[in-house]
């Protein structure tokens, strides 16, 4: 084998092995992670008192309206149906809705910079021309220059079809189009100030398969509201009352900013009226509180809560839930209509009937205590230690730069490994982070060192050069077990033969023995042509007559 061909084979086989190894470790990690998450979701542990009607508090039949929040699997059940791992950046630019008589298609045309609204009667097979063209300048049934151009818009459909809100990131304006009723209507809001940077509005969510809020609770215990007694010991089948709505904020439109603030937007004036709350900051696997920013969370969901009173919707507040970057910790907070924390976001412990304000920490600590949670975390650390050390180092460096949802499907550089989580701990200083990382890296380093030493010894026994042996040693340390598998795939397959000179195994395809440097023309052991002892008499020769004859010849 030529030197180049050998290098190519090592490189290609190494990459293939590394890829397969990374996929296997990903699934091992996923299984462990879902072991932790399912322990939470099975028990329906996090429940939140959403709001409580003070006037009806004395009613013996009254119970607080509650929501149920839990963590589900981070892998969609159907990859084709659920656009898996939808990043936040994919703000919607089209709405397709089926109505009783046909389909409504509202989509953005990047070439013209206009939204096209089509109505397809019956089915979508035959698309007609657009019924309306919508631009920042208004609505028209034809494309016109006066309509202007949207530059970077995203759209939200409010309630029934025909009501669309559009925000353009570059124009920094909200627009409202109402195609329902007495002809199309259009209005534009004021240009937003530089301090406000909406990234989502209307439906505020990311990673809907992670945070699940059950509107209709199954058989579960209602959360306590602080007083003793209450519902302890009772099991009731409860649902959210039918006059509550969790899909609209009534006269407002909720809007999320990049820093996690939730604001209220007036649907009529398209002006920002005030705060509505903020995304809660969950704790991670190590109990450290993470940032409640949309791009730092693996999932979040905000539910506005409205109640129908006398035919109109009254906004009561909102419930915000968010999951930690690695998708394990969960935090839930509720806010009133003015955006103030209600203080009723209680963690209800089903096991002990206790109420804790510090619910996230308690959730995590109890997950650790649980048998399956502890087992899953241990197994996860074990699988983590089999990851090559070089990727651990890169994970440490890139942990904060990678978006959490993108990190969930990462194969090589994994920001949600233990080292990555450690790197994100804001409560720890850099030296302590480095020290803890080193401690966590020790198993990987030990595995790598052991593999490296094995590879070096084995490579030298195959007659490899010491320089290449050093390369295999380094590869063993950096890549660990994949390097060992690669070596066994690409190592010389020739059967070794015994060297006639030194007796050790040597390669048949090399000119000389790699131990004693003897060539193939070596005939065997020969007696030296000198002698230390005096020649003996012929009769006293201890080696017999044949040897004596040879000595005589010499």
């Amino acid at each position, binding site marked *: *084998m030529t030197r180049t*061909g050998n290098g*190519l*084979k090592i490189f*290609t*086989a190494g*990459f*293939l092995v590394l*890829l*397969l190894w990374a*996929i*296997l470790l*990903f*699934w091992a990690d996923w299984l462990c992670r879902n072991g932790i998450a399912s322990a939470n979701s099975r028990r329906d542990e996090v429940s939140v008192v959403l709001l409580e009607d003070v006037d009806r508090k004395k009613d013996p039949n009254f119970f607080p309206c509650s929501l149920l929040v839990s963590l589900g699997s981070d*892998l969609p059940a159907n*990859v*084709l*149906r659920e*656009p*898996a*791992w939808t990043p936040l950046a994919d703000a919607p630019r*089209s709405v*397709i809705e*089926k109505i009783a008589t046909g*389909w409504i*298609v509202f*989509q953005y045309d990047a070439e013209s910079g206009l939204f096209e609204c089509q109505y397809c009667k019956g*089915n*979508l*097979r035959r*698309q007609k021309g657009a019924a309306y063209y919508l631009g920042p300048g208004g609505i028209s049934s034809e494309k016109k220059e006066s309509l202007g151009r949207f530059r970077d818009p995203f759209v939200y459909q409010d309630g029934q079809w025909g009501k669309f809100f559009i925000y353009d990131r570059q124009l920094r304006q909200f627009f409202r189009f109402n195609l329902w009723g007495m002809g199309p209507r259009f209005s534009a809001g004021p240009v937003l100030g530089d301090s406000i940077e909406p990234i989502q509005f209307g439906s505020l969510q990311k990673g809907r398969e992670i945070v699940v809020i059950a509107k209709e609770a199954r058989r579960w215990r209602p959360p306590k509201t602080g007083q003793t007694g209450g519902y302890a010991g009772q099991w009731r089948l409860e649902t959210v009352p039918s006059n509550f709505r969790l899909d609209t904020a009534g006269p407002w439109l909720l809007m999320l900013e990049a820093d996690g603030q939730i604001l209220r937007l007036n649907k009529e004036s398209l002006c920002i009226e005030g705060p509505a709350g903020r995304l809660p900051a969950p704790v991670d696997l190590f109990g450290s509180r993470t940032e409640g920013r949309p791009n730092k969370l693996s999932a979040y969901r905000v539910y506005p809560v409205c109640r129908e009173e006398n035919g109109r919707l009254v906004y009561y507040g909102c419930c915000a839930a968010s999951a930690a970057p690695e998708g394990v910790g969960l935090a839930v907070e509720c806010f009133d209509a003015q955006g103030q924390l209600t203080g009723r976001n209680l963690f209800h412990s089903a096991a002990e009937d206790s109420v804790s304000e510090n619910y996230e920490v308690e959730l995590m600590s109890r997950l650790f205590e649980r048998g399956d949670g502890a087992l899953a975390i241990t197994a996860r650390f074990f699988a983590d230690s089999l990851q090559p050390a070089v990727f651990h180092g890169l994970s440490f460096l890139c942990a904060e730069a990678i978006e959490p949802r993108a990190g969930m*499907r990462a*194969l090589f550089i994994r920001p949600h490994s233990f080292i990555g989580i450690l790197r994100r701990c804001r409560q720890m200083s850099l030296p302590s982070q480095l020290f803890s990382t080193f401690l966590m890296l020790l198993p990987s380093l030990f595995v790598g060192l052991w593999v490296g030493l094995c590879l070096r010894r084995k490579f030298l026994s195959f007659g490899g050069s010491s320089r290449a042996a050093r390369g295999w040693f380094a590869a063993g340390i950096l890549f660990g077990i994949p390097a060992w598998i690669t070596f066994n*795939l690409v190592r010389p397959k020739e059967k070794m033969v015994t060297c006639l000179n030194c007796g050790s195994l040597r390669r048949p395809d090399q000119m000389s023995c790699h131990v004693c440097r003897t060539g193939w023309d070596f005939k065997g052991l020969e007696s030296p042509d000198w002698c230390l002892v005096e020649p003996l008499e012929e009769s006293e020769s201890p080696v017999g007559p044949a040897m004596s004859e040879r000595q005589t010849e010499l």
Partner: protein
Amino acid sequence: MWTLIRREIEDMWVFYLVFLLLWVAAVLLLASAAFRGTEEALRLKEGVVYPYPFLCVVLAVLGVSQMYFDRMRRLSAFLLSRGTVRRQVFAARVAAGLIPNLFFTAGLGAVSMVLFRNFAFYNAAFRNDLISSLISGFLAGTACYGIGLAAGWTSSRVFPTLGTLGLVIIVLSLLVIKGFDIQVQILFLTATVSAVLVGWESYRTSSL
């Protein structure tokens, strides 16, 4: 070269028959979904994507069979005595493996485009989605075929069968992890190149 490719196809004609049957089944699946009057483009997309795992398994088995029977029957030794070189034999083998995948993907793409246009909602987003799914499926097939080539050059009987099947499952799970986007396409492409090069190096450096 064409003679070598034809010889490979004639040797492995059973696999090509399986490819044809698979393609017909996929088209029938698509057509039935379309003629039932479904409005969901998603249903058609499922019809496009679901045949690919089967195709990948068949392609991997094809790769294994090409290399394994070559080694067992000493086909290359015979061919090299007829004035060919190893590079030509291997290239013809790879071409004979890529041809069914290419025809399968192109045919399925054409049929699904027609069905999309006539029986389902069709716009640029769906078209891009469909094209990326087809490209990912094609590259997954080539990666599995390459793994079959790399794993098939052995005298063992266990690894080419069970081992290759395991590797194909692992590789295909990339689609579940990463979806059908550009990342998975790059990974599949790199895996294909790596696997084919490993197979080539094993084939080139072996004594026949």
